[in-house]
Structure formats: structure tokens, C-alpha cells
């Protein structure tokens, strides 16, 4: 009985070959993920490349922030308040992006700010991804009453306004980086659950899963070995979009004063602080806002690209 897994293993690599129209996107995604063609296809997708490059640059910036930041992002200097950035009149190379209302070097703050955004983005996605995938896989695999209950949970979650709930929780519990990550992680799992649920439902009825079940494989085994690899592609794509979403939400929360607290250099918070100088020094909001825009743009471009590369039949 050494061949127990063979039918399942063999077909799982190429389940979409017979009927590309009805086959789940995830299965092809996996085939493509493993495909030797993947790098070639990725290299031809220019938007994906642009997104990846920007993201890698920002990641590097976050990792070696202490090495490249010219100043301590927290050290204030009342003598050097509101120095304009280099491209404006009065700008100096001492402070290429100028200084804020408390005389802190803006470039250093922007560099350190990338750490907060990336931290929040990553941990939120890990947290929400775990919750959403678990719920989605359970609902999709077991169906019936389990599905009914989980569907109800998803619907309830969708009905709660994310930004208000997040604001309220932070207001009650108190704000810190951890709280923001936890709140967003507990709120942003809906898309994972919805997509995973339908993906698993599709995969569940594929022949190779049926055959694994017929051969008496245990449920956890089937989920981990046969289903998860096939929905990996969709998972990666949603993860990128939710990461972008989390970064935008953190920025909004911090902007509204109920996210990351001063003096941490969160980009959203920097925009909020810059609001006081809106009339005469609008660059104070332009720079951190643009940083958020660039990071989210990079992640979205990468996500769009991954979707095109991994699941070409889903492209619209």
C-alpha cells in the first residue's frame, strides 16, 4: 500500500489541465507557482517589477534605518523649527526634507516611519490571515451547519464599520502599536475567509481530493496536504491587498489621533501634526502622505502582478 498517495499527488500538480474553465484558480496558481516559467513571467510583468523594486527599497530603508537616518527622529531642536525641504527656498542639505514643528529632522522621521507601517502591515496580515483562513477553510471544507455559522460570523463582521470599531477599541483600551495591530488583525480577516471558503469549496470537489478521501486520509491531512497548497496563490494575493489596507487604516487611525501615539514617527500621525501648518507649510503633510501612497502603491502593484502571474484566468 505504498501507492496510497499517488493518485492524489499526481493530479494535484495539474488539475486544471482538463477543464481550465471550471477548475479553481488556486490549483493553477500552484502549478504556476512551482512552474519554472514563474521567474520569466514575473520578469515580463513591468508593473509587478516596479512594485517589487519600490517595496524592496522601502524594506531596506526600514531595516537599516539607524545607519541611513541622518538624525535621531525624536531629538527636537526649537532653533531649527520648520526648515523647508531642499527643493524649496531656504532648504539646506542639513535637513533634506526639512524639519517639523518641533525641529525634528523630517527625513529621519520618514525613514523610521517605514518601520511602523511595515510592522503593522505584516503583523496585521499574519493575524487576520490566520483567523480568516481558518474560518474560510473550515466553512468550505465542512459545509453544512459549520458553513452556516461561519457565514453568519462573516456577515456580522462585514456589518461592523471597521474604522469606528477600531477607533472605539483604541479609545477604550488605550492606544499602542500592539493594540492597533491586534485590532486591525481581528477586523480585517473577512476577505481571507470569503475567498478561502469558496476556493476550498471548489477544490474540495476535485477528483484528487475525493480520491484522497476515498483512500481514507484524515481530514486534517487532506486540508494540509491536498487543499492548502492549491489555494496558496489566492492566499498570497489577498495578503498583499490586506497589507495595503492595514497600512492605510493605521494611517487613518493615527491621523485621527487614535492610532500610534506621539512621539512615534507614524506617517499618518505626521500628516496629522502637519495639519497645523497647512496654510504656510503644506509640504509637512505632502511628504509623509506621499510615503504612505508610495508604499501602498508598491504593495498593490505587486499584488496585481501576482494575481496576473499566478492566476491568469482571474485577470480582468
Amino acid at each position, binding site marked *: 500500500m505504498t501507492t496510497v498517495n499517488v493518485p492524489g499527488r499526481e493530479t494535484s500538480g495539474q488539475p486544471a489541465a482538463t477543464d481550465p474553465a471550471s477548475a479553481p484558480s488556486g490549483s493553477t496558481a500552484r502549478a504556476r507557482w512551482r512552474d519554472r516559467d514563474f521567474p520569466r513571467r514575473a520578469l515580463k510583468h513591468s508593473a509587478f517589477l516596479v512594485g517589487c523594486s519600490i517595496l524592496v527599497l522601502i524594506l531596506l530603508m526600514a531595516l537599516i534605518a539607524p545607519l541611513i537616518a541622518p538624525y535621531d527622529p525624536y531629538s527636537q531642536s526649537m532653533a531649527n523649527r520648520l526648515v523647508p525641504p531642499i527643493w524649496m527656498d531656504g532648504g539646506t542639505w542639513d535637513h533634506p526634507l526639512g524639519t517639523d514643528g518641533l525641529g525634528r529632522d523630517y527625513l529621519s522621521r520618514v525613514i523610521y516611519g517605514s518601520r511602523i507601517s511595515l510592522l503593522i502591515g505584516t503583523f496585521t496580515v499574519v493575524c487576520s490571515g490566520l483567523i480568516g483562513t481558518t474560518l474560510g477553510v473550515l466553512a468550505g471544507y465542512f459545509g453544512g451547519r459549520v458553513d452556516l455559522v461561519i457565514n*453568519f460570523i462573516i*456577515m*456580522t463582521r*462585514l*456589518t*461592523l*464599520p*471597521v*474604522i*469606528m*470599531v477600531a*477607533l*472605539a*477599541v483604541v*479609545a*477604550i483600551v488605550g492606544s499602542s502599536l500592539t493594540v492597533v495591530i491586534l485590532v486591525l488583525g481581528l477586523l480585517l480577516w473577512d476577505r481571507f475567509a470569503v475567498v478561502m471558503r469558496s476556493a476550498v469549496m471548489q477544490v474540495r470537489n476535485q477528483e484528487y481530493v475525493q480520491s484522497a478521501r476515498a483512500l481514507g486520509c484524515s481530514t486534517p491531512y487532506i486540508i494540509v496536504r491536498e487543499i492548502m497548497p492549491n489555494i496558496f496563490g489566492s492566499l498570497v494575493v489577498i495578503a498583499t491587498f490586506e497589507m*495595503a489596507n492595514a497600512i*492605510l487604516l493605521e*494611517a*487613518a487611525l493615527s*491621523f*485621527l*489621533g*487614535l492610532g500610534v501615539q506621539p512621539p512615534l514617527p507614524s506617517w*499618518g500621525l505626521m*500628516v496629522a501634526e502637519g*495639519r497645523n501648518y*497647512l*496654510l504656510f507649510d*503644506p509640504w509637512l*503633510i*505632502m511628504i509623509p*502622505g506621499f510615503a*504612505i*501612497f*508610495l508604499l*501602498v*502603491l508598491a504593495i*498593490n*502593484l505587486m499584488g*496585481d502582478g501576482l494575481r496576473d502571474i499566478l492566476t491568469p484566468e482571474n485577470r*480582468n
Partner: protein
Amino acid sequence: MIGYLSQRLALAFLVCLTVSLITFFLLTSSGDVVSAIAGEEATPEQIAALRRELGLDAHWTVRYLEWLGNALRGDFGNSLFFRETVADLIMHRLPNTLQLAGMSLAVMLSLSLPLGMLAAFRPNTWVDRLALSIAVMGQAMPNFWFGLILMVVFALNLGWLPPSGSGTNWHFILPAIALGYYATPPVMRLTRAGMIEVLGTDYIRTARAKGLSTTRVLFKHALRNAIIPVVALTAVQFGNMLGGSVVIETVFGIQGVGYLAWESITRLDVPVVQAIMILVAIAYITLVLVSDVLNAWLDPKIRK
């Protein structure tokens, strides 16, 4: 159809009930509301008295049922901060929010529908690329930042429009653009995808074979079918705009429900927050129901 509808209604009701329970729990778990109201110098006796006065000493189930009973009658209690009932407070602010949401919806539709359709009609041309870049930019831009940029450029520098407040219709233009643009990308993408799919169908070829003009083929035969999923998404996006209004109303100082929510959350004005959350939930669920009904109405296959 009626069975389906009543089933959906029952589900919606259950979801609303659950949401009310969650918000109730969430907000009453913040124990120090009373001490916050009473002030720092209040004695334990005074705090206990205040708790009794506010009815906070009873068991949570009793309080919840009481709150629910009142809420069903439209009585959400009194604001802890304003000398007004919550219902009055919200009713006074609601018109501003509705005006903002309505105008944002108009901005969103007038951007996403024509651009999405044009992009589908002329794929891989400059129109298509323009539409795509507008969508990609819109998805990446924090809406509060975009709002501030609009304010800096059109209100502070050019002086064309007022920067903040909600006194006149002019006050709503910039916020509506900011909020509408924020909701545009998904709708535009779906319009484009739907149109491309429909334009490739056999019945569009039939319509052309009948000798109809391009405009008639596009607007009567293609749009009608491509619009079905867009309607559902628009309703959901309208719901999302209600959430987005918290940020945009705060940025532009519009005296609407979103701004009220933010003010009340920062002041822990629990009755107000509770009422707004449940109302937003009801609005959202109603919109989803409406989109279902619209869908059924637009798609003859579901109608029967």
C-alpha cells in the same frame, strides 16, 4: 422570491441584533466612563451614586435588554456630553452626512461608469491606461491625505471653495470628491471587466447584426447586462463611504454623523457611539438587501 426575501430579512435582523450585542459589550466594558464623567475629585460614594443614576449598577443583561427595548422605540438615551438626546443629536447631523454621501456617490458614479465603459470599449488605448492609473492611484492614496491636498490646492491656494465647515453646498464639493474618489477604483474595475465580458458575447453580435447604432448597442444591450454586478458593488461601496465619512468629515469639519462619531469616541460618549454604530450597521445591511433586490429586478433569471 418572497421566501428568499423573508429569509434574507430574518438573517439581516439576526446580524443587527448580534452587532448591537457586540457594540454594547465593547462599550460598556470600558469601566471608567463614570469616573471620567464624575471628574477626578469625585469620592467613591459620588461615583456609586452616579452609576445608580445612570443605571449602570444593574446586571448587563438587564441593561442590554433595557437599552434594546428603548432603541427599538427610537430612544437611544442621552448624550453624556451634549445636553441633548442621542436621537436628536443624530437627526440634526444626519442631513449633512446624507448630503455628503449622496454627492460622493454622484462623484463616484460619474468617474467610474464612463471611464470603465470607455476603457472596456477601447482596451489597451490611452483611455484604458488613464482609467487604470486613476484606479491604481485611488487605491493607494490615503483618503484623508487626498482630502487635505484638495483643501490646500482648491481652498487655501486658489480660494475657489471653502476649506472646511458645512454651511453651504459649496462646502461639500471637496469632501465629496475626496470620498467619491476613494470609492471609485473597485467600481471602475468591475465596470470595465463586466463591459469587456459582455461586449464579447453573442447577443452583442446579434444586436450589431440588427443594424443598431454603436451607442444603442452599448447603452441598451451591453450596459444593461454589465451593470448588474456593478449595482451590488455600488451599494456595498455606499456603505463603505459611510465609514469613510468619519475620516473625511473630520478632515473637512463637516458637522455630520461621522464627525459626531469621532468626537463621541474620543470623549467616550458611550450612548452616542452605540447608537451610531448600530445605525451604520443597519444602513449597511439595508444597502446589501437593496442591492440584492435590485439585482433580482435587473436580472430576469433571478426575478422568477
